[in-house]
């Protein structure tokens, strides 16, 4: 690994100016769990790292009944999993964060670093797409917000401009009748990264499901919603047959990747099974 300058700006504007000044030779640095591996493999060889650790605006988890949840980009996975307001209002998110990777990586890796690295085989992107989250992005030029679905562009590629920093993730307040479930499927327990993941959220009013969101990831270059599956479930009382039909639609419709961890046919088959089981658990369907 090549040596580098380690810069420690005190606020977002200063960090942004540093990133702009050093361009391609510069990277933001949060926990380092993803970037250090890339540095050691010489996938990148920056001359400057801009550490975000001293920027207070990137920290903290806050809940407000009207505005929802704000998760600072520097929040570590373990902190997200243990935050009382997350456990209480977003159990699906807390449960996701409690089980990704392994205990050490959860104590070191940040949510912001996870999202900005945009590695497809990870958990938060799919879960946050299911929860209709937005990202707050800032630079010395100003601040903007994007739906998380627009933040991911392709494998390891986000909508961040070189001088931009992810400041926080916002999750809307949950409706009183909101339900949701996130499932990760691993090929073997020793392989920490998900092969397939699925997030489903809905409102359950009476017998019917409304505002249904179905997000699939890990087997796709970026997490994606599945409109045909959502339309099948929307406004209906979800039955085992309907769940199976929605799961089959998702397996057909996604852009499935094919690589050493699983070929396309296997990944589609697992998407079908995992989504069907997730729907069964979410809607208390018998027979799974």
């Amino acid at each position, binding site marked *: 690994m090549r040596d580098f300058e380690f810069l420690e700006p005190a606020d977002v504007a200063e960090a942004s100016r540093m990133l702009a000044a050093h361009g391609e030779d510069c990277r933001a640095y949060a926990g380092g769990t993803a970037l250090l591996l890339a540095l050691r493999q010489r996938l990148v060889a920056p001359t400057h790292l801009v550490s975000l650790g001293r920027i207070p605006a990137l920290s903290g988890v806050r809940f407000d009944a009207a505005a929802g949840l704000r998760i600072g980009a520097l929040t570590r996975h373990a902190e997200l999993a243990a935050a009382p307001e997350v456990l209480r209002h977003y159990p699906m998110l807390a449960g996701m964060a409690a089980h990704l990777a392994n205990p050490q*990586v959860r104590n070191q890796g940040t949510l912001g670093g996870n999202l900005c690295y945009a590695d497809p085989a990870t958990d938060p992107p799919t879960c946050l797409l299911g929860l209709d989250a937005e990202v707050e992005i800032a630079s010395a030029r100003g601040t903007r917000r994007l739906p998380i679905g627009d933040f991911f562009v392709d494998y390891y590629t986000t909508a961040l401009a070189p001088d931009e920093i992810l400041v926080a993730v916002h999750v809307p307040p949950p409706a009183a009748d909101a339900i949701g479930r996130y499932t990760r499927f691993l090929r073997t327990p020793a392989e920490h990264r998900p092969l397939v993941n699925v997030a489903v959220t809905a409102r359950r009013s009476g017998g019917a499901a409304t505002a249904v969101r179905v997000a699939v990831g890990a087997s796709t270059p970026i997490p994606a919603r599945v409109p045909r599956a959502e339309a099948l479930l929307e406004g209906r009382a979800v039955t085992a047959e309907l769940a199976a039909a929605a799961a089959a639609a998702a397996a057909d419709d996604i852009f499935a990747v094919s690589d050493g961890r699983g070929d396309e046919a296997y990944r589609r088959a697992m998407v079908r099974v995992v989504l069907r089981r997730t729907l069964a658990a979410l809607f208390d369907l018998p027979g799974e």
Partner: protein
Amino acid sequence: MGKHLITLTVNGRAEEAEIPAKRLLCDLLRDDLMLTGTKRGCETGTCGACSVIVDGRLVKSCLMLALQARGAAVTTVEGLAAPGELSPLQQCFAENGGLQCGYCTPGFLMAASALLAQNPGPTEAQVREALDGNLCRCTGYSGIVASVLAAAEKLRGH
């Protein structure tokens, strides 16, 4: 590239070192401070042999720059007991077949210490979950899990 002077506390002792920015925490411990109990294993964050505790958090020291531990209190396997002695946890590893070649052991001891500090009465499932970031390639996990459960009981005074 400039050097950085860093100070931190390791196993209760104030330490100081002059290092390049790229120095990993595991290398600071092993090569600058000569605390070779912490092992470098896979160096990709998978095996956990380099696990240490930084300000109460269990971390993989190969996935962290030494600069990130500035001012922190670090505990390594050398800090578990006085030289020549074994802590109750270490004693339980010895008594319950918790190690064979011993290379992964410092990492398992640190992961188990972090668990027991937070949860003195873990279930077997909780022990297995807490050890999920550590790999053993010779003895298998049954003896290790039994060692941690035995240590928990011993430390609770049974």
